[in-house]
């Protein structure tokens, strides 16, 4: 059922078994797991309403600094959405699995290594796929790459082709709204921003959450278990701002909350490519609806995991963009404007070697100094606004450069073309050509050791018996794939864990 929070009396207490804070991909995926379990009462608190509003979005304003962010950059309010369905409301839909190497401890990457493996997560990936409404992501490459759409480089010991799949995209708030509304055991509180998590006298459990009712009053929501699922920026903000019993914030005994902020680095115009063979083209690498899968896919080129290990590199995917044929801008425009069948330039297009721009997406090296903190300014419900200091490292540049260089060598070795690297591995970060993927990762990282992670492998805050975190903030490293499918898979895994605890 949906409950307008303004109808809740100030100072009242709402009791549930599970309290989920946040109604984005993670929160909704968890709540749905309890749809047919009437004996379990679930609350989901959404700070915003059912649709976008400027007033709600303004709660996301804060300070920014770092390698590529301007002061008061639009990054904070523009990369997430504060209403039912969360950031899935503007999600592009790209998703896929992380790679096995993403879960491994890589000695050249500090604090890398997940406490779980891809195999651990695989059953949950399978359950997550229908939730994001795609299937067929396991279709072998040889069935996807056809004579019309061949892969640019044959898979070898050095390179592999990675396919990104696109969900419709699933707007979780719209897609799952009706079933949540009709549910009798799930209460979705709308307009219910949590002001703080309150630790009880034991110091080890959350006793209740304070839900803001205007600027100076509140009501309480109480549960046996709490799941913080407000995204990679708000999760640490909430923990840091809940200081009543722990001045450093909840779960922050080892000064880890908010640290290791990462995003996927998108670097534009990192290189250029010509292909030797006219029969090759970049069609597989354009975003297109695949005739077998019936959803959008785009292919990229990556170094093999063996190459990443050998050269101590971060995971990175190379995208091929906008072929620019050598016939000049006017004829190019004509060729695009005219139907191919009547287009006298189509032969030129078909027979000319591809010449295109390269763009890369690279995993960011975990960096302790890249972090979310709180400012002294309070928002309208009295929560400190956040400050994001997003730091990139020289190793991030070097890794991207070296990856492109090795792929360039592979183009030559396979006799398929030549690559020009226009990215200066030693230069400064260029704000015009480098930006994030709006994937907020790492700020409540997962590790079996409390001194290295905020949550354990069950996503429970180490120092709290009943507080769990869902979302990409628990990723210790980002990999190169978009995070939503992994967010949902981890949420389903957490749901199973909660069901087990509730059954005890």
């Amino acid at each position: 059922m949906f409950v307008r929070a303004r109808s809740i009396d100030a100072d009242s207490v709402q009791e549930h078994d599970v309290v989920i804070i946040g109604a984005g991909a993670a929160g909704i995926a968890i709540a749905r797991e309890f749809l047919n379990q009437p004996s379990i009462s679930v609350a989901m608190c959404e700070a915003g309403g059912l649709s976008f509003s400027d007033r709600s979005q303004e709660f996301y304003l804060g300070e920014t600094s770092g390698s590529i962010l301007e002061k008061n950059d639009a990054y904070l309010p523009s990369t997430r959405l504060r209403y039912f369905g969360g950031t899935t409301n503007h999600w592009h839909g790209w998703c896929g699995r992380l790679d096995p190497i993403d879960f491994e401890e890589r000695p050249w990457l500090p604090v890398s290594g997940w406490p779980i493996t891809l195999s651990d997560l695989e059953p949950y990936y399978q359950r997550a796929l229908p939730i994001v409404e795609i299937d067929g992501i396991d279709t072998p490459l040889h069935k996807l790459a056809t004579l019309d759409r061949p892969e640019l480089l044959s898979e070898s010991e050095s390179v592999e082709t990675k396919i990104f799949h696109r969900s419709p995209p699933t707007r979780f708030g719209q897609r799952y709204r009706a079933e949540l509304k009709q549910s009798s055991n799930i209460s979705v509180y709308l307009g219910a921003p949590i002001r703080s998590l309150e630790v009880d006298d034991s110091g080890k459990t959350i006793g209740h959450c304070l839900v803001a009712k205007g600027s100076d009053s509140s009501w309480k929501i109480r549960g046996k278990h709490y799941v913080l699922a407000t995204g990679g920026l708000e999760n640490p903000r909430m923990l840091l701002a809940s200081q009543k019993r722990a001045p450093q914030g909840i779960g922050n005994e080892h000064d880890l909350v908010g640290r290791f902020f990462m995003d996927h680095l998108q670097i534009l115009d990192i290189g250029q490519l010509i292909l030797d063979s006219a029969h090759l083209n970049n069609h597989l690498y354009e975003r297109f609806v695949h005739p077998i899968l019936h959803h959008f896919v785009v292919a990229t080129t990556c170094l093999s995991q063996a190459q990443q290990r050998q050269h101590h590199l971060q995971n990175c995917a190379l995208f091929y963009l906008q072929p620019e044929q050598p016939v000049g801008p006017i004829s190019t425009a004509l060729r695009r404007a005219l139907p191919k069948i009547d287009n006298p330039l189509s032969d030129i297009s078909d027979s000319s070697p591809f010449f295109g721009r390269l763009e890369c997406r690279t995993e960011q090296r975990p960096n302790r100094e890249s972090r979310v903190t709180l400012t002294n300014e309070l928002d309208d419900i009295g929560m400190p606004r956040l400050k994001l200091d997003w730091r990139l490292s020289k190793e991030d540049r070097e890794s991207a450069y070296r990856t492109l260089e090795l792929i360039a060598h592979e183009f030559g070795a396979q006799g398929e073309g030549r690559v020009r690297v226009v990215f200066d591995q030693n230069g400064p970060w260029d704000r015009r050509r480098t930006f994030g993927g709006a994937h907020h990762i790492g700020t409540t990282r997962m590790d079996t050791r409390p001194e290295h992670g905020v949550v354990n492998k069950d996503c429970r805050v180490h120092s709290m018996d009943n507080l769990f975190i869902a979302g990409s903030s628990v990723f210790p490293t980002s990999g190169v794939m978009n995070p939503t499918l992994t967010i949902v898979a981890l949420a389903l895994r957490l749901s199973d864990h909660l069901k087990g605890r509730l059954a005890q």
Partner: protein
Amino acid sequence: MKLSRRRTLFLLGIGVTGLSLPIVIDLPLLNQRAFFDKSTIQELSSRLPYVPEVADAMKKLHPEVPLESFQSVLNSLYSQSRASLTAEQTLEIVKEKIRSDFRSGNVIDVAGWKLSETEVRIFCSQRDSEYL
């Protein structure tokens, strides 16, 4: 497929006036067909002049390149083709040599382009060719 000397110099990052100019990459400049075209190979196989001006530019950009050995290396590479190989066979030898360069890391950066040592040497040797 027509490469002008001016374009080649652009590729090398050297303006015709000797000033360093922004690199303007023109597709035909690096069209692989230009590298591998049979007539090019035939011409190269019969006439492999050394181009001091271009070689000097390459040397400034890439001091590690043993330019002084270009002539001998290319002579060695093409000596067989002059003797008995067909153009197709010569082409395959060149292609394999270039691929081998990439596999073994004999790669040279020319204004950002990752090129095999062999093909750079070919570039530097095409004086008076119609491709220059």
